[in-house]
């Protein structure tokens, strides 16, 4: 189990390597946001790994990062959406998510907290699933991408959908999974780790295909 968790932490390096290989590409704002998203995951993993090794409380970092990632994802999809109703929904969704996550403010502001933020994982998870589905709807509605498998945002959205869909049940029953006994937490942490590896690989593909987009 520990090996998978470490592999998940280190899988965040793959998008960074791809980013360095792609290096001099001129990126637009959404592509830059995807890169920032990958960098935040990498920094979070590195920081929490080091803090874990030094036996320092790092749970609040997970909670903050989840919130920040949710905000970045919402900004990405708000830019990508062409429909103004979808844009408004995304903005409304993230505002509600942030407000709800502040209900459990201790998990964010108490550095010694040992709990995941019960609310932000659920609301942001649901929000991201809906946003990716709306984006897929937009892709098949406008048909502007000739080959989806060479389209950066498709890979990113697929990764996000698989990760958040796969982890939503673990987070919905957080009291049973992550905020309960160590044994139980480790069991569900493994699911999260495997999905995190998959998500990082998909982000890597997304960064790899960040070229001036072809449309038909």
């Amino acid at each position, binding site marked *: 189990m520990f090996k998978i968790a470490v592999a998940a932490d280190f899988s965040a390096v793959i998008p960074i390597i791809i980013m360095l290989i792609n290096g001099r590409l001129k990126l637009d704002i959404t592509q830059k946001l995807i890169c920032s998203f990958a960098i935040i995951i990498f920094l979070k993993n590195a920081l929490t790994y080091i803090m874990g090794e030094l036996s320092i409380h790092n749970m609040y970092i997970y909670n903050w990062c989840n919130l920040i990632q949710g905000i970045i994802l919402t900004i990405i999809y708000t830019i990508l959406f062409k429909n103004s109703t979808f844009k408004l929904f995304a903005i409304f969704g993230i505002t509600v998510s942030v407000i709800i996550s502040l209900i459990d403010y201790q998990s964010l502001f108490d550095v010694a907290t040992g709990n995941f933020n019960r609310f932000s994982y659920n609301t942001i998870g649901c929000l991201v699933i809906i946003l990716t*589905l709306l984006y*897929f709807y937009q*892709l*098949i509605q406008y*048909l502007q*991408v*000739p080959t*989806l*498998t060479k389209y950066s945002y498709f890979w990113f959205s*697929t990764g996000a*959908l*698989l990760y958040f*869909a*796969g*982890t*939503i*049940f*673990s987070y*919905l*029953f957080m009291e*049973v*999974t992550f905020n309960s006994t160590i044994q*139980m937490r480790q*069991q*569900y942490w493994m*699911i999260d780790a495997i999905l995190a590896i998959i998500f990082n690989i998909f982000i890597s593909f997304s960064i790899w295909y960040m070229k001036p987009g072809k449309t*038909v």
Partner: protein
Amino acid sequence: MEYPYVIIIGTGIMLIMAMFIVLFVMYYQRKQIEQQMRVKDMEAEFQRKLLEVSMASTEAERRRIAQDLHDDIGALLSVTKLTFNALYGQLGSKDQAERLAKQVREALDETISHVRRISRELVPTTLERFGLPAALQEFAAKSIGSHTVRITFGYSGDENIRLEPKVELMLYRVAQELINNALKHSGGTNVHVQLSLPPETFGLVVEDNGHGFNLQEAHTRPSPGLGLDSIEGRLRVINGKINYETGPQKGCRAVVELRQLVLFEKAKKRDVEKA
């Protein structure tokens, strides 16, 4: 059911649903794009057919006018000339009448030759009878007469191989347009027309040593332009394509190619001559 099972089953179902959605999006999008492409192809084919019909009707109209000019007006003029010659014999030796009669006869001769020229230009009879090399050679030779530009013509391959009449006519019109463009707009001193005939390959090259042009600019130029759209339209009908190698002060080299070559007949020169 206990919580752990609910969570594991729920996670599994959610993952399967997510994967199903992704696969559905990929499949549906591909199908839609394919359908869109098919519709575009059908539209292009329809446009091509429309263009073909329009050009065929233009050619038919030209043929009718040429026929009328040759058979009706030409014949009438010839009869008028003969009648006039007979009348001229009856005039006697009055100087004034003789001078006027001479003028009328010259005007009649000139009109007859004009009618013949227009008739020949409307329908290239040389093309129909002797094929593309002979027709282009004749056109190049005629074009020299009215311009100071030097026009040379060369060909390789079997001159007896005939293409489909429709293809030959379109290629002839394209060559006419290209040569006229070179003469009118290039500002060069030499124009060379090179024809490569089957069996090896087919290619038509028209090049000049003029000041060239900006291809993008020429395409967007308002009418009357260089007729590039008309050339491309004609070539679309016969499944051909044209490439321009040009640029400011670089002359122009237009290369016409056919994607699919349909041979009409391989007539021996002597058979044509006998006919």
